[in-house]
């Protein structure tokens, strides 16, 4: 557990014990570490430009922003853009899609990663274990473009899936998976599983290895079998890790929806494939009806919902006594 949640040590702790400096001491210390302060200032300037300045762009959401007219010349419309957003059925639809795929992904990714880590941990031959693990995180390093190409090729009418289904006489003619709305979410979820299960399992494997072996020995003495050891020793042992990662990924649930949906979606499934990010991108790039203001308003909505999620999961983690995420 120790080594899995040390992302940030709260700096507050040290500040409490640090004695307050007098003005004189502060001056001296300032002079001594001027180089740190100078470099720090450079980072502040960089951060102001690339991370904080864009936030000023949020005023676009309250304007009818036209690039040619700029921020000063564009007309103010108050909350008009937000009103449009929440009366736009497409926007409500993309919110639903984003949440649905985010939650599906969160649940299945977690379960599969834990399951895979446990099964891999039960293997005794080191070389077999190593080989399987090396293979398992290979897809993590592939881009979504390649993964989508692979998924697409596997599911087309001549793909391996339809070949198997036809050989088993389950279907008579190739089934058009990619054109069916009902299949889009499962395909996206499976693609995530294919790409990330091995990678996500790394952290659970590390947590499993840090479980005290004595616990397994005493369980054996008490006559516990394989399954009982998994259920009563392994799973409780990695429970804190599971909780932390689950909460952390909960904060990211809205960010799970861009590349694969964008690359794999098509006109026939657009009602279930489009996510908030794709919606924003359309307002930014779609030549005929570019509306930066609407896109920005949707972006603000997304940022606020994401932040709420993160704050809530942080709060739960704190309340449960586990270490805070950040």
């Amino acid at each position, binding site marked *: 557990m120790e080594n899995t949640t040390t992302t940030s040590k709260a700096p507050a702790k040290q500040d409490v014990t640090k004695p307050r400096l007098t003005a004189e001491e502060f001056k001296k210390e300032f002079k001594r570490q001027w180089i740190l302060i100078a470099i720090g200032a450079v980072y502040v300037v960089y951060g102001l430009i690339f991370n904080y300045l864009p936030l000023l*762009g949020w005023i676009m959401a309250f304007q009818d922003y036209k690039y040619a007219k700029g921020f000063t010349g564009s007309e103010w419309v108050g909350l008009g853009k937000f009103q449009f957003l929440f009366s736009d059925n497409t926007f409500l639809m993309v919110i639903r899609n984003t949440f649905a795929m985010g939650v599906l992904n969160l649940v299945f990714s977690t379960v599969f990663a834990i399951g895979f880590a446990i099964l891999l941990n039960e293997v005794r031959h080191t070389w077999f274990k190593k080989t399987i693990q090396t293979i398992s995180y290979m897809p993590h390093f592939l881009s979504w473009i390649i993964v989508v190409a*692979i998924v697409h090729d596997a599911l087309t009418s001549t793909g391996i899936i339809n070949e198997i289904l036809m050989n088993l006489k389950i279907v008579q003619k190739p089934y058009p998976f990619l054109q069916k709305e009902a299949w889009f979410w499962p395909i996206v979820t499976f693609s995530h599983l294919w790409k990330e299960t091995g990678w996500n399992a790394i952290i659970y494997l590390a947590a499993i290895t840090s479980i005290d072996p004595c616990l397994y020995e005493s369980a054996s003495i008490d*006559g516990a*079998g394989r399954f009982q050891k998994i259920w009563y020793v392994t799973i409780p042992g990695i429970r804190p890790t599971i909780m932390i990662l689950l909460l952390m990924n909960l904060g990211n649930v809205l960010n799970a929806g861009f590349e694969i949906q964008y690359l794999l979606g098509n006109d026939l499934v657009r009602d279930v494939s489009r996510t908030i990010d794709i919606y924003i991108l*359309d307002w930014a790039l779609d030549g005929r009806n570019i509306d930066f203001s609407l896109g920005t308003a949707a*972006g603000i909505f997304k940022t606020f919902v994401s932040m709420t999620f993160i704050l809530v999961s942080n709060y739960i983690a704190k309340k449960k006594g586990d270490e805070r995420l950040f």
Partner: protein
Amino acid sequence: MSENVKELKLNKKRKMATEEIVFEVCNAIFLILFAVVTLYPVLNTLAISFNDGNDAVRGGIHLWPRIFSIRSYEEIIFNRPSIRQGLIVTVARTVIGTFTSLAANALLSFILSRKKFLFKSGLSLFWIITMYASAGLIPGLILFRYLHLTSSFMVYIIPGMVSAFNVMVMRTYMAGIPDSLEEAAQLEGAGYMTVFVKIVTPLCTPVYATIALFQAVYHWNSWFDAMLYNRFDPQYTTLQFELRKLLDSVSASTGGQQAGTSATAASVATIVPVTVRAAATIATMAPILALYPFLQRYFVSGLTIGGVKE
């Protein structure tokens, strides 16, 4: 009586032994299946890429090419200048981008991990906020236009140089280095920069390697920034973006409308032979596949150092 008890115990042991064997066998089969599902698509693409173009259309190629040919590779190497341009840009951004962001993140982490730094908590907070409050895609796009970063190579390097997340991981690692080393060096007259270069950096090799690996993979795989900022500048295209155009030329040429993989794929497939698509896919993933098994120990340790997965 005691015979009976012995018998019972033996039975129980035997039962457990069979249970163990069944479990091991099932587990092994399951894991092998998992590996097959992971590997098959890649091996299949490899086989198709080495097959003759006209023959491949018939389908039915699995793990081995039916009629061997390296035509498709010749095609993508010699006949497609846009792919070559994408490769050059991608290699350049991977090398430059990885190095600059590693240096930038390491230096900021160094400052934030100095216990006596006067503005430590302030500067930490300044960067932690950036992890949560993201302005979104469009304000960024407009800012980059004002800064003349669109239609340039620098848009790949400069905006993403500092990542608060990576800084937090590195800072935690650096904070674990004993203060006595720094104090000893300072007694000898070393300044902060000397401490950073000569003492902290050599001790941070594992975490540097991890972050560099993540950054390199990120740069190698990126296509979205090429589409968003350099759509009309073919000289700044990236390899993945070119691969995307090849796999689904309609979506790329309309600049991002979700194009029909269904309705249009058939017509596209006749323009770009399936073997050429496969060859381009293999060529794009080859460098990563060749390298990652050797870098394993770094990212496995790196994940547990940072305690976070990406």
